[in-house]
């Protein structure tokens, strides 16, 4: 009882948020789960079919491809953004001329919406009128860049477009970190005669760890959300080679009038996110508390 009245004002202030989380988030999750057990088509209907929707989901070739894609995309996009973003930051950190110009150029893609990025890269990578075509016209007949229409490579074409957009943002974050490094550290490193690449990799990088963690969190949030980029770039094609779980859900929701299937797929998406987040949350809230107490 006492714990309930402690900080009563702040608890009251939090009440709307608590109510919204409970009704909107938890409520919708329960709603989705209940309807994922039904054969709902165009309109939600309570005609229970057990776990048939899940059975169909796991049998679906398309869903398999979607799940595989989100892993490829997540891995390549995260690593790509971090590596390229960090390299760009290091290069800009060399006190070069026209720094602000380059910074603007590298950051600019981030200011664009994913839809625009998708369309631009769709044109650039199109073999019949894009970059490949230009190369042919310039006389390089052997040149081939068919990633976008090659079902094995199309997902990597998506990654290129995404990294192109995201790397600049990581660069800015990392650069802010690099600028925070004290000059004395650089001086002592040069007195010790440590090569530059070694100092960046083994001394500076650990020092800007908070920036790296921030970047990873922001990028990872973008991975789960990816939808508009792929829609604009490939619409999930060729065939369904670049489809993602989010697209699978949206498709079944709207164009396919297959609500039960969409709910089942979104529940599986939810469970997978929880599976990834749970160990981290456990570490943050439980393990850390223990550490602090000890």
């Amino acid at each position, binding site marked *: 009882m006492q714990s309930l009245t402690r900080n009563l004002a702040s608890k009251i202030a939090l009440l709307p948020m608590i109510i919204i989380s409970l009704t909107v988030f938890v409520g919708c999750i329960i709603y989705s789960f209940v309807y994922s057990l039904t054969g709902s*088509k165009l309109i939600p209907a309570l005609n229970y079919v057990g776990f048939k929707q899940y059975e169909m989901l796991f049998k679906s070739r398309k869903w398999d491809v979607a799940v595989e894609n989100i892993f490829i995309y997540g891995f390549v996009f995260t690593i790509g953004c971090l590596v390229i973003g960090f390299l760009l930051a290091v290069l800009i950190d060399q006190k070069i001329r026209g720094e602000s110009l380059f910074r603007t150029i590298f950051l600019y893609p981030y200011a664009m919406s994913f839809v625009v990025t998708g369309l631009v890269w769709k044109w650039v990578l199109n073999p019949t009128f894009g970059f490949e075509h230009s190369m042919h016209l310039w006389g390089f007949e052997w040149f081939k860049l068919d990633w976008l*229409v090659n079902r094995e490579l199309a997902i990597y074409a998506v990654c290129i477009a995404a990294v192109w957009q995201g790397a600049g943002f990581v660069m800015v974050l990392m650069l802010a970190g690099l600028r925070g490094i004290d000059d004395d550290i650089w001086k002592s490193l040069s007195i010790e005669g440590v090569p530059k690449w070694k100092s960046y990799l083994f001394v500076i990088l650990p020092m800007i760890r908070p920036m790296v963690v921030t970047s990873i969190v922001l990028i990872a949030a973008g991975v789960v959300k990816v939808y508009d980029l792929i829609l604009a770039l490939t619409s999930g094609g060729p*065939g*369904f080679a670049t489809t993602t779980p989010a697209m699978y859900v949206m498709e079944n929701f*709207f*164009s396919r009038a297959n609500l039960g299937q969409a709910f089942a797929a979104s529940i599986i998406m939810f469970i997978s996110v929880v599976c990834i987040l749970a160990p981290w949350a456990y570490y943050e809230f439980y393990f850390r508390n223990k550490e602090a107490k000890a």
Partner: protein
Amino acid sequence: MKKLISILFSLLLPLSFTSVSKAGGHMEAEVIHWWVSGGEQAAISKFAEAWEDMGGTWIDTAITGGDNARGTTVNRIIGGNPPTAAQFNISKQFVDLVEQGQLQSLEEVASAEGWRDFIYPPELIETCEFEGEFYCVPVNIHSAQWMWINNEVFEKAGVPKPNTVQEFIAVAPKIQEAGFIPLALGGQPWQEGLMFDVVASSTLGFPHMAKLYRDKDVEAFRDGKMEMVLQTYRDLNSFIDEGAPGRLWNDATAMVVEGKAAMQIMGDWARGEFAVAGKEAKVDYDCVIPGKEKYVALGGDVFVFPKNSDPKVKEIQLKMASMMVNPTVQANFNNAKGSLPMRLDVDTSAADACMQMGLDLIQQPSAIMRENDDWNSPAFTSAWEDIISEFRNDPNYSVSAAMDDLEAVLTSGL
């Protein structure tokens, strides 16, 4: 005091708006549709003009993309704010809405005006009738069963124009040698599915297709002919350029119009693209219905009228339904749209040579073909399309594996 007044005012403000909109609700009709291209806009405006001539107000809610438009309609019905009228395709797309009692029955006006006597072909009545009552208004007929041919390209390649898909495959290598793309395709699942259906129905004939799509007859599916169709479909692949994935249908049509490609398999809405480019039917381009037996598929559009809590709306909806089947309105609308009207007593003197072929054909009941989505839910047709699309794009996807997967969809009960 001032604050109190302003609070009161802000509370009253929304009310004042609602009362205004109620007062202005005389024959006011909001229509959701997905006709946004030039020719389509011209067509829908014929409805709007006719409606305004009757003293109504037309609120046009055009939403790009059939999927999006239908999604909006369903969401608004569920959300309790339905439009007056909404577009769907001649298909099973809106069956759920009827079964859930969300649509206004049009039986009053349908029986009063004798719709059952003049709507042609009668298959359209089947689409709209549920338990003896009309729930939708068919407005036009579009057939998917066409090959669009650039005459000049075939002349330059020195090969005869094909009458069947198989004949095309025989001459296509020569077209390729002459430096043209033999077949223009937009590599989106619905276009790949459309092309497959044209190959299948022109090879197997409509009765056999009905056994598959309507009866889900596994024996007919496994009688050895389907493998042949899949093989033919795969053979077409080598005549399609590699830029196809994701291409829009009208961009593919433009390739034929501009003489970059020899042929496209597409519905009769492609004719509009030729017309806009100033090309003349049978002179610059040719239209062929492939196969020994010629069919005209009953694609097209309907309008449905969602139930509304306001009883006045029903009256408006019945008036609009009656307006849409009016022969003069039908003539204006379909001439602008380039589609076939849903009744025979309509003035079609403006029809070009290609449209005339469709008009002649539709008068023979045996030439009328129903399609996958006339019998099956969107869930079924899109699951089917997925496999067809994957089969086209993945050369390692064998015919026998595709057969197994198609059979799984056929028997899935979707």
